[in-house]
């Protein structure tokens, strides 16, 4: 903005212009307008959102808000049923759902994806998410199905492995 004015007024002194503009225009800091910030961050993709979380404490707090990740999960599908939110939150939240299930599922299926699959991908991710939650419930007894002293259960292990793309 300052630059435009600067270009338009050649005859005035550069310094004066800057001083004048500063006095006329209210300062705008994005951090003062958290609602706008949220609207912007809502539209980011996963990677950008993670980068944004490293900017400052405020941005970090906002980026960690689960509702942003909810948007990320359901961006390309029609709005989910309202009952979904309570289920997902109970199972660990949208961020966990996205990072653990939706993202790997979408990236794996990227090659073979068809447009109609978007909703089913999320559905599948939810199922896998639920299975993972169940497995993490553990129980500690021998009937847990795991040897004592083993690493954490990993029914999602097959998702975590890098794929030969």
């Amino acid at each position, binding site marked *: 903005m300052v630059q435009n004015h600067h270009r338009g007024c050649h005859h005035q002194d550069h310094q004066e212009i800057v001083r004048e503009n500063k006095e006329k225009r209210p300062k705008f800091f994005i951090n003062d307008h958290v609602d706008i910030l949220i609207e912007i961050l809502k539209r980011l993709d996963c990677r950008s959102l993670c980068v944004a979380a490293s900017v400052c404490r405020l941005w970090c707090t906002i980026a960690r808000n689960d509702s942003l990740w909810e948007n990320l999960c359901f961006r390309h599908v029609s709005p989910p049923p309202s009952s979904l939110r309570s289920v997902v939150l109970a199972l660990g939240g949208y961020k966990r759902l996205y990072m653990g299930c939706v993202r790997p599922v979408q990236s794996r*299926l990227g090659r073979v994806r068809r447009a109609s699959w978007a909703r089913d991908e999320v559905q599948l991710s939810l199922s896998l998410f639920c299975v993972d939650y169940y497995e993490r419930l553990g129980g500690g*007894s021998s*009937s847990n199905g795991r040897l004592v002293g083993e690493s954490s259960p990993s029914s999602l292990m097959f998702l975590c492995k890098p794929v030969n793309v």
Partner: protein
Amino acid sequence: MKRDHQDICGADGGGYGNSSGSKGESSITSKGKLWEEDQDAGDMDELMAVLGYKVRSSDMADVAQKMEQLDMAMGTAQEDGISHLAYDTVHYNPSDLSSWVQSMLTELNNPVLPNSDSNSSKPQQHQQIVSSNQSQVYNDDSEYDLRAIPGIAAYPQPKRIKTSMETDSSSSTTEPSTQPVVLVDSQEAGVRLVHTLMACAEAVQQENLKLADALVKHIGLLAASQAGAMRKVATYFAEALARRIYGVYPQDSLHPSYTDMLQMHFYETCPYLKFAHFTSNQAILEAFATSNRVHVIDFGLKQGMQWPALMQELALRPGGPPVFRLTGIGPHQPDNTDALQQVGCKLAYLAETIGVKFEFRGFMVNSLADLEPKMLDIRPPEVETLAVNSIFELHRLLARAGGIEKVLSSIKTMKPKILTIVEEEANHNSPVFVDRFTEALHYYSSLFDSLEVSGVVPPSSQDLVMSESYLGRQICNVVACEGVERVERHETLAQWRSRMKTSGFSPAHLGSNAYKQASMLLALFAGGDGYRVEENDGCLTLGWHTRPLIATSAWQVAATE
């Protein structure tokens, strides 16, 4: 063939020597006849040719064996002096390794010594040494006859050395090939391995246990030369055959939690169980579409891994979740712990978390045939919709007469809306042992192949080993057990279909949703390209490349007029 070769060498005299240089084929022009013979016979091994030796690739194994024999014979004959080999033996054409080694062996066994009094004793000594070496190597007697292996590919018969060695008929009359030989061509070894396995199965079927025993040992050696899946499969089959031969039938007395653990690892490393769960759940969901109270009877609850996904889908059903009742069936636990109840508690916790009303009951029975519908508190279909689910459980009932019929009629009296069955797609229940063996060999080879490729970064070796162990126990049961102990009586989808139809069930087609979900699930697995989901007249099969391995089918009670 080799004899002729040697004759030619003899006829033309020496002088051929090492003139072949770097490429054996290129420099030969002097021995026209020899060269033709070679060309007709096939490729020379190129690596040996670089060293200046001409050996046919097809002869490599034999040459290797003869080298071993020579090595051994020379080693043991040293006290008697083998100097005659250095001075008196005429070496013809040493670059032709196979005939050279042959001539050396002949010389060693039948040394051409200058006439002396010790002549008569020395040959005897040599023979004795060689023959006693032979008997040391394989101390079991008779019938160790590898010619039992069918097909030339399995064991080509080399020309025998016509020495008085052959008069020792008490020891084996076969070629001294029992020494471990590292076969160069692993593909050929693979073929031999399969042939040996088949021959062993034949021997077992004919109750020729001595031969079978010898062959089993041979399998072990051959298996060592293979890599990856083939070696593992061969090892498990060899172990199972050995158990059958020695009569050491494994008791199925492992703690059920151990077998559950093995199955958990299997669940995680490959998609078969996940496929089974997801496709069955889809069929059950569609059957439950409009009900407010639902009841599922699971014939093999194990760790209950199938039900979280179903509960989650019920929770998100438009219109809210129904009341979900689960009855889990499981085996008795030796230490009286109530494993079923523990699983039920976990499921109840999950149900509460996601907001589904949940009831659980567990039943411990030794066999599904012991179940009575009265015990299960079945409510009328108007009140509650029932689904019965059986994943890899029904085939066990075929071990006892009447078992499967009783269970199927019990199911009919329960009046379920849907019955989902997942079974292995293979016929491992033939009364003829060899047929069963062959089928199982092919089936588990495919299965192990798919495990091998289950990821660019392979699953942790422990997971892989556990999964293989899980399958290995099945192999052991199919091959080594008989009668009521043989519970892994897999049958094909076609066989199950006819059985279900005659028992009064009609097929319910699995919809395209199930197919879509299964395809997506498989695409997630790193080895996804090899897995194939196929639709087979309303049933879904999951296979590895061209071989279907498991099949999901859904059934309703046939409407009677």
